[in-house]
């Protein structure tokens, strides 16, 4: 909401410097976003009168205009088509700053010589002054403009641009802001007189109004003005409209807009002649009806929309936009002026459905007071008579089916203390309330006030609403600062959250970079991960901002692959990323299941280029090492088993099993999948762990194990087995012997030195007993038993 300070001054004495006023308004809830000064650069521009206009001796289309500036007269060359003798115009002397009509930049006016005649200044267009975009002719000032007065003094202004919160439709008006300013500076407001002469026939004889759907229209007021003359509105009104960001159109439309800005009540002017049957019906639209709105678009109506209709057809979309047929245009002489109160919810639905948000609809939807309708109507009628030369019919139409009485609100001092944590003197409270137009009486019990709320404050309904008024006018700085002092509530354990944070820390410790990606994904991304649609469908967003963000992801894979690819494009050479985030699994008629999932991706160089080490690429076992670290830190006993996965390379993929349950998968990204994401690194390893599943399995309680007191004996064991025997199988067998305390695989070999189809695995086995020192014989015997069992169960032989 833009407010001109000159206009504001009509209703309240602005005793504070602009900055301070803006600060007070901001603190009290109406944030002043910007302060714009109109005419900031108008030094050297003053009001002149055209005293003589002659033809340029050497140019047909140029004129010599003599401008009286009070103290002196200046003759200049002009090409303006609209100058006439006697007119008052803004005149800029050499040195003044004007906006260049073509470039839009502010430039200093220089003396000009046109066809041999020198000009020491120029008359200006609105555009050159920065008032509007009009540049066709010189701006013509009203005849009463005083010659010689600096233009800034005459029509400079300061515009506050305020952000009005949706609960304060009353502040979407200059008078509303004036009331705020008055309360904040402890003064009264001067609201204009709205009386006018009623000369015509009684209005009941001229028009009738019926509200067919009173649930959507609580009040409808109308006046009728005949014999109006359509033309431009006066300069001052145009200026104020422009200052508030509205375009002047004609005196009639400008008056309705002006009163809307002044009071916050939207109005609509109909061409009375076009209202068939001289009857206005406020009703719901019909499904087969349509209406050409003022913007020339045919709108299909329905029963959810409220329309203003005459005897036969809709003539306006109530509170949203007028119809083209009843538009006030030049031959119009009689105006039917509407000032009504429509139900905000319906206006909001209609305007959103039709994508027609207007100044009017945005006020109605916030719920303005029905009491405002006749007041604004009379004000507009008064202006119509004054500025368009009309005659008003006697009386106004006022149909008010939604009349409601507002009971006073009881406000106790005790409640004020309970909410604000501070006690205020009762007289101070009453003074604050009164400055806002809220009258209060001491009621019965000591310390209780009975507060009557003025009609325009539709937002105040509870004692707590009044408490906010007190706090914001007194200022929040007066509220003390205390700490919570009640007992600290019981906390419930949140094992998933702690697991998730632990996982994050462990992975960071493994050298992985955490990423956070969007929960939204695209059909294309889902397809890349699941080309044959083997997985269930993803949840779709009905109104996505873009197709990139149309679905909720069902896995983290696509996010990480895309993230990997993007960083590869940025020439990152070692990429190790992980994300712990939710995936969204649809559950029919319920909210989706949101599952905390871990995924990681690795590829590129194992370490940065270094003079210390050979260049080497990350591989499957780097990723596996990360997972092993993770599970070991979580005290979960994980095993890995070959598995197939549509995104991962066959033979290079394992599922992760904890307690017999699959909790995740690990593998090299399938070259086809990598290609879909434009990933060029090879290999790229991906892993995925279902944290919720892990939660139920991991984290065996930590118990201290005594440090072994007896020495250990180490033996190496080099075996030759068939190449397809899993190392873990041998390792498990070795580990199953009770004297074995640790098994480490330290060499894997397949090549010339072993038979074809075989591989050699070398283990370092440590033997130890918690009870005694082992003898060589015991160890040799156990090792022999191990070898025999390995041979029996896996065909392993000792490597000779």
């Amino acid at each position: 909401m833009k407010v001109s300070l000159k206009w504001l001054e009509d209703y309240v004495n602005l005793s504070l410097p602009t900055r301070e006023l803006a600060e007070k308004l901001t603190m009290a809830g109406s944030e002043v976003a910007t302060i714009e000064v109109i005419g900031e650069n108008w030094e050297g521009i003053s009001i002149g009168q055209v005293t003589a206009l002659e033809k340029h001796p050497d140019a047909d289309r140029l004129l010599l205009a003599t401008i009286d500036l009070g103290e002196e007269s200046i003759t200049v060359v002009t090409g303006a088509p609209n100058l006439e003798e006697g007119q008052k115009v803004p005149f800029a002397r050499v040195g003044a700053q004007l906006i260049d009509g073509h470039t839009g930049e502010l430039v200093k006016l220089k003396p000009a010589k046109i066809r041999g005649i020198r000009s020491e200044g120029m008359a200006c267009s609105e555009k050159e002054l920065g008032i509007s975009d009009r540049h066709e002719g010189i701006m013509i000032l009203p005849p009463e403009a005083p010659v010689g007065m600096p233009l800034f003094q005459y029509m400079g202004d300061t515009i506050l641009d305020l952000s009005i919160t949706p609960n304060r439709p009353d502040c979407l008006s200059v008078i509303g802001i004036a009331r705020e300013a008055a309360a904040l500076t402890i003064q009264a407001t001067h609201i204009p007189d709205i009386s006018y002469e009623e000369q015509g026939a009684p209005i009941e004889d001229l028009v009738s109004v019926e509200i067919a759907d009173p649930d959507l229209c609580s009040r409808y007021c109308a006046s009728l003005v005949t014999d109006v003359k359509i033309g431009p509105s006066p300069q001052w009104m145009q200026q104020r409209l422009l200052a508030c960001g509205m375009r002047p159109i004609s005196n009639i439309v400008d008056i309705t807009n002006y009163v809307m800005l002044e009071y916050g009540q939207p109005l609509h002017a109909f061409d009375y002649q076009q209202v068939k049957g001289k009857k206005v019906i406020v009703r719901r639209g019909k499904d087969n009806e349509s209406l050409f709105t003022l913007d020339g678009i045919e709108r299909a109506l329905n029963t959810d929309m409220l329309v203003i209709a005459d005897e036969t057809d809709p003539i306006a979309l109530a509170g949203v936009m007028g119809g083209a047929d009843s538009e006030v245009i030049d031959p119009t002489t009689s105006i039917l002026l509407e000032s009504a109160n429509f139900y905000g919810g319906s206006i909001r639905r209609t305007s959103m459905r039709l994508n027609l948000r207007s100044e009017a609809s945005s006020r109605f939807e916030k719920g303005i007071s029905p009491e405002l309708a006749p007041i604004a109507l009379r004000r507009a009628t008064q202006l119509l008579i004054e500025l368009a030369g009309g005659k008003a019919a006697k009386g106004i139409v006022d149909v008010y089916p939604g009349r409601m009485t507002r009971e006073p609100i009881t406000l106790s001092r005790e409640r004020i203390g309970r909410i604000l944590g501070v006690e205020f003197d009762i007289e101070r409270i009453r003074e604050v309330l009164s400055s806002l137009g809220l009258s209060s009486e001491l009621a019965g019990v000591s310390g209780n006030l009975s507060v009557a709320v003025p009609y325009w404050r539709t937002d105040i309904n509870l004692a707590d609403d009044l408490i906010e008024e007190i706090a914001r006018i007194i200022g929040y700085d007066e509220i003390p600062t205390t700490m919570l002092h009640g007992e600290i509530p019981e906390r419930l354990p949140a094992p998933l959250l702690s697991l998730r944070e632990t996982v994050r820390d462990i992975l960071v410790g493994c050298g992985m970079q955490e990423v956070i990606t969007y929960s939204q994904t695209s059909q294309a991304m889902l397809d890349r991960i699941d080309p044959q649609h083997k997985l269930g469908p993803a949840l779709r967003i009905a109104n996505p901002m873009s197709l990139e963000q149309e679905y909720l992801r069902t896995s983290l894979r696509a996010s990480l692959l895309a993230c990997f690819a993007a960083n590869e494009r940025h020439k990152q050479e070692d990429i190790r990323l992980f994300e712990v985030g939710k995936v969204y699994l649809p559950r029919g008629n319920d909210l989706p299941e949101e599952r905390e999932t871990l995924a990681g991706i690795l590829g590129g160089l194992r370490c940065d280029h270094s003079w210390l080490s050979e260049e080497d690429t990350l591989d499957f076992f780097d990723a596996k090492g990360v997972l092993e670290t993770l599970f070991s830190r979580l005290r979960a006993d994980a095993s890995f088993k070959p598995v197939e996965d549509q995104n991962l390379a066959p033979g290079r993929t394992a599922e992760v099993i904890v307690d017999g349950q699959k909790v995740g998968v690990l593998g090299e990204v399938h070259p086809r999948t990598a290609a879909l994401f434009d990933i060029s690194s090879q290999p790229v390893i991906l892993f995925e762990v279902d944290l919720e599943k892990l939660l139920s399995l991991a984290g065996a309680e930590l118990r201290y194990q005594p440090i072994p007191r007896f020495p250990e004996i180490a033996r190496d064991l080099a075996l030759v087995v068939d190449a397809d025997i899993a190392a873990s199988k041998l390792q498990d067998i070795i580990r199953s012997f009770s004297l074995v305390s640790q098994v480490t695989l330290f060499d894997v070999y397949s090549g010339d030195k072993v038979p074809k189809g075989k591989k050699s695995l070398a283990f370092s086995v440590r033997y130890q007993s918690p009870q005694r020192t082992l003898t060589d014989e015991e160890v040799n015997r156990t090792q022999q038993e191990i070898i025999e069992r390995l041979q029996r169960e896996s065909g392993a032989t000792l490597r000779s």
Partner: protein
Amino acid sequence: MIAKLDELRSRALGELDSIDTSSGLEAWRIRYLGRKSALTEVLRGLATLPLEEKRATGAAANELRTFLEKTLTLKEEAIRESEIARSIEQGQLDVTLPGRPSALGRLHPTTKLLRHICDIFMAMGFEVIEGPDVEWDYYNFEALNIPQDHPARDMWDTLWMDFETEDGRQPMLLRTHTSPMQIRVMESRRPPVRVIVPGKVYRYEATDATHEAMFYQIEGFAVDKNITLADLKGTLFEFAKRLFGEERKARFRCDYFPFVEPGVEMAIDCFLCNGAGCQLCSGSGWIEILGAGMVHPDVLRRVDYDPDVYTGFAFGLGLERMLMLKYGIDDIRLFYSNDLRFLRQF
């Protein structure tokens, strides 16, 4: 005999002079002090000598032995010293060469700040609870005093899920704020409650340097007997100091959120210009950081808390804005595009 010992002494000393390694020294020790050395033989042969000579020779031999042992110790030390000096001399490093790189993992800056903020509130007795990203209209709006067709819905441009009820309503959405958890938590617990809710929120919004379709919020609320706006002020001002520094000033101004009454917005004095006015604070000297207020009595009533007995406060803040302010980041889109060149700075 004495003369033989003297000759032995001068030979031993002469040889010792030219020795400069530990191994050479050991050979010398064996030669002159070992079991088969001439000196040991002299000592062993003493018994056969006549008494007078035995005494004199014995004293001289023992004296020579002690002398050689002492000399050996001194020489050992000298050689060790010179060997250390030699190894240091030979083993000098170019200490300016880069170290061996270790893989460096990092948390996402959002996670880091989220944890920091949670820690601050946990120290004040708040508990961390999370909630669903996909919500019902009821929790996101209606239960928070934002019914259908309420103009305040414009404050939250909403992404709706493609999900329709039989009567044609579309009640499933991506939460636009973390406030729905006020309702969910209060529905399941009796006061007192003190909870913070971090999480992702979503908006139907074209993205640019200051707008994202997904970002993080932290909601906080406390409900009990005797909680006042003064407590809200105390809690949040303390939070601002712990997050932005002890010297920060904070202020409340009136603002509107349908689910609180009174509603406020908190700002801190600009840490770039210390309140004088600069580009960061758009000249005002203050930077808005969060919205807050006293929980609306209708909200309490809806979860069956008696507003005449219980009062409470609630607040919500956007995380990325804090990060942007703290680190001078000028584009919010950097957070979730996960460019390593960005992430590795934190």
